[in-house]
Structure formats: C-alpha cells, structure tokens
C-alpha cells in the first residue's frame, strides 16, 4: 500500500494526523479507549477545567435539534486542583498529545489556571475557552469582545510557557476582528468554533427544554457557519487554525482543511459514534491514496490565496 503522510504541524504542536477530539465530548479519553485505540488520534482535548469545582447546570442538559444538538452542561468539572491530583496520572500514561481546555470567569481565573498548569510539560497545549460569561465584566462573554480576548490571551501566554490555543466563540459580529486580537495577544494557535447560542421550547409543557434555558448548538447544523468563519479567519491571521463545528465525515474535515484549517476537531460526531474520529482518519488516508496526494499538508488552505 502507498504510504501517505497525514502529519501536520501547528506551531510547536506536531500531530501524526489532523484529527483531534473536541473538549467536552471525549471525557479524558478513558471511556473512548473501550471503542478504539485512542493513541491513533492526532490529539485529545479534555473537558473544560475551571478554578473551582463545578456541578454544572441542572438537567435536562441536552436536546436534539434538526441535524444538531443543544447542550448546557455548564462546565461540570472537578476544578483545577482535583484535575491535577487525579487526572494527571491518566493523561501521563498516554503517548498521544493531550490538550487541556480551561475556562474562567475573570482575568485572574485565566492567569491562575495558566500558572497552575505551567509545571506540567506532559500537556501538549492549553486551549483557552473564551465563551464563558465574564461575571466581573458585567456578564459579557470574553470571546465576544476583542479587547477582553486580547487580554485573556496575553495573560495566559505570560503565565504558561507552552503552546497556547485560543478557542473562539462564533456568537460575534466580526470573527476576524476577534481572531486578530487573539493573534496580537500572542496565541500560538486558534481553534474554532465553539457552539452557537440557541434554545428550544417544549410547547406541551409550555416551558424551556433545557434546565439552563439556553444551550450551545453543535453538530452538522452549524457546519456552514463554522466553515465560513474558518475561511474568513484563515485570510487574516498567520497562526494555524484548528477547525471544528459539525464535522462528521472525512469530506467535512477536508472542507475545513481546504478552508484553511491545519487540523480539525470532532465533537458531536463522537457522541453518535464513539470511533467517529478514527473513521475519519482512515477515510482521510484512503482519500489521499485515491487522489494520489502524498501529504495532507498540500490541501491545507487550498482555497486561500
């Protein structure tokens, strides 16, 4: 069989293939291990960590929408201390690059989380989730304001010596302005997109469906929006992009790669089929062989001039 190269490099992050499992949809990898050898992944991103432990939102936390799903997990997590105490060991045992996703309610939160994670070179990168509401700043979401997102990026970079990924919220008027601010703030990589804010109503109960009223929309429904944003951002920044939002098949992944993403992440797809990412890796390989393309790198940003 022909050997094709699926390897990609994003800043200092070297991945054997461009498939990453997205934060919040792959636990810490342990559960997926029952379904396939997770070492085959390009990388894995753990569920978002906050300073304090959080029990998350009330149930129902999930509801299906046409070709999409709304979730309002609400960042349930053990908090940074317990994460380091208990999860580090699990992650240490993996060979594959593990990305830690962090969320904060204030600049101090982000600084603290970055500092706490700084001593652990076993993490491949820090992914900064800026879609969380900024309580201190008056309820605005960090990721929707370019000054705030710049500050968050800087403070994390100042406190963390490794690779920093900033994950963009799509709920903004101009995604390119946010992306530029992130680049100026010193981020090494941009990942995008997080979920679109949505909601659902149960007309029989005359009540909102989700315990938290609003939820984040993910899955195939949002793919056109995610792809457009990746394409727009790829034209204005020089740092690499991890693309995501509704990727279910290798064809979807290739759309993002051609639009400018150097790697892709799958979230919702894993919830439907635990080995979705693995299948995409295999399909990507088959695609390259079929088309006589030696390396996936040749396709990155194909549509960007």
């Amino acid at each position, binding site marked *: 069989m022909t050997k094709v190269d699926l390897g990609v490099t994003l800043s200092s992050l070297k991945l054997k293939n461009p498939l990453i499992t997205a934060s919040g949809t792959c636990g810490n990898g342990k559960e997926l291990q029952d379904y396939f050898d997770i070492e085959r992944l390009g990388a894995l991103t753990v569920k978002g960590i906050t300073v304090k432990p959080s029990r*998350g939102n009330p*149930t129902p936390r999930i509801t299906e929408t046409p070709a999409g799903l709304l979730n309002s997990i609400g960042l*349930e997590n053990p908090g940074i201390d317990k994460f380091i105490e208990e999860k580090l060991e699990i992650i240490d045992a993996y060979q594959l690059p593990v990305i830690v996703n962090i969320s904060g309610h204030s600049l101090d939160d982000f600084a603290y989380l970055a500092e706490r994670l700084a001593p652990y070179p076993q993490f491949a990168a820090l992914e900064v989730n800026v879609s969380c509401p900024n309580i201190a700043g008056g309820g605005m979401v960090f990721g929707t304001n370019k000054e705030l997102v710049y500050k968050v990026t800087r403070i994390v970079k100042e406190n963390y010596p490794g690779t920093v990924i900033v994950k963009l919220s799509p709920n903004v008027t101009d995604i390119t302005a946010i992306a530029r601010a992130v680049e100026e703030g010193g981020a090494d990589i941009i990942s995008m997109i997080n979920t679109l804010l949505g909601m659902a109503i149960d007309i029989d109960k005359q009540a909102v469906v989700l315990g938290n009223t609003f939820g984040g929309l993910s899955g195939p429904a949002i793919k056109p929006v995610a792809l457009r944003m990746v394409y727009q951002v790829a034209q204005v920044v020089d740092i690499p992009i991890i693309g995501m939002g509704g990727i279910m098949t290798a064809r979807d992944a290739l759309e993002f790669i051609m639009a400018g993403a150097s790697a892709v992440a799958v979230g919702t797809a894993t919830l439907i089929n635990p080995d979705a990412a693995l299948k995409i890796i295999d399909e990507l390989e088959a695609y390259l062989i079929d088309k006589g393309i030696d390396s996936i790198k040749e396709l990155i940003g194909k549509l960007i001039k």
Partner: protein
Amino acid sequence: MLYKIVRNEQIGPDYFLLEVFAPHNYNRVRPGNFFHFKLSSQGFDPLLRRPLSIHDVNYQKKRWVFLYRVVGRGTSILADFKEGTEVDILGPLGNSFTLTQNKEVTLLGGGMGIAPIYYLLKQIYKDCRVNVFIGAKSKNEFMYLYNKISELGVAVNYATIDGSSGFKGTVLDIWKSKGSRGDYLYSCGPEPMLKEIQKIATKRNMIGEFSLEERMGCGIGVCLSCVCQTKSGNKRVCKEGPVFSLEEVVFND
C-alpha cells in the same frame, strides 16, 4: 454495530416488541444494561441515539429482546423498521442490577419501567421469593408482560390508573395496600414514583436499587449530559448507572 431485526411487532397500544439477532454478543448482557439505537440511516436528522433497556434475552435464538413504547420521533421511526433490515446499536451500556441472595425481593415497575424488570426477574426468581408489582394506565398496556411473567410461575400484582383491570391506582398504591413489604427493592419508573419509594424505604430501613432515566447524548460517559445527583456528587446515568442504590440517589424537591 449493525444487527438484524428479526421481529418488530406491535403488542399493545403504542407498545412494540423488538428482537434483534446478536449471534456473537447475545449473552454479554446483564439485567439493567441498556443499548443505544441510531435511527437515522441516511442523514443527520434525528441526530442522537435513543436508549432502550434490555427486556429479555432469547438464548436459543441468540436474540436481544426490547420492549418499547412509541412516544416521539425516534421511537416512531424505530416502529417503522421492517423485519430483515438492520439497525445500528451500541451496547450493552451502563451498569446492571445486583443479583441479590436476599429472601424477599420486591420488583416495582411503573410505566415504561416495566421493560427492564422482566430480564431481572428471570435471573432471580428461582433463588428468591419475589413479589412483582407493575402498573400502567390501562389493562392492555401490560397484558403481554403479565402473561410472560405468569408463565414463569410468578404471581403479578398489577394496578391500572383507569381501573380497567386489577387494582385501581398506581403501582405504588397497590404495593402500599399490600403492606409495602420487601427485604430488597428493585424499581424502575417515573421520578415521582421512585422518590416516594425512597421515602418509604428509608423509613422502614429497606434497601434496594433504582434504574434511572435521563436524557442522553453519548450513552458512553463522555459528554456529561445525563447526570443525576447522588450523596457522593453527580453521577452519569449512562456510566455509573442506570442502576443506583436506592439510598444514594438525591431527588430534586
């Protein structure tokens, strides 16, 4: 994985019996486990899988048996699956009931909570003294199950909301009318029912297990959609559950 459907038959108002051929895995399932069914074959709508408990295993024919009620879009699509076609199922998933050696065991099934009760019963009725209580809106909703349990030689106490047969009331009403007894309780059903059982059990120092239902994303423990509250914090219904010990579950007020 794809499994061939060998039976998908309406056996009551909105109730269907589904049998799939699982030649390699049929005996890998335990009472209380559930399976996650993918229902869209061509597109991404409906997107999520749907959970159904194991209702029975046919060891001779190497089949898993499910009992389900059509309540919405997913289960309607399932009801349309023809015999001979294949369905994508993930599982068995979740934990299972503890098979007790206790002497007097009580099984309480309300609404669709009757589905998992049968396979559990089959595994314990020879070793224990079992009392089965099932309840439904109307008689024809559980005639199928009533007959099947009776075939085991086990007596069924049943209640109907509309009084069309048996005791008029809920499964709890009839259980109470018989003295709310049992050394060990197994129960599946709507939350208010489980909540009241917990109250009674606590008062009387009874122990036992609940099988809980919660909306699921993945069914395999990665998304944290399906949590329930317990005395030791949030637990995932799909992973640490769906079976929890009666005393550890914390219900909302």
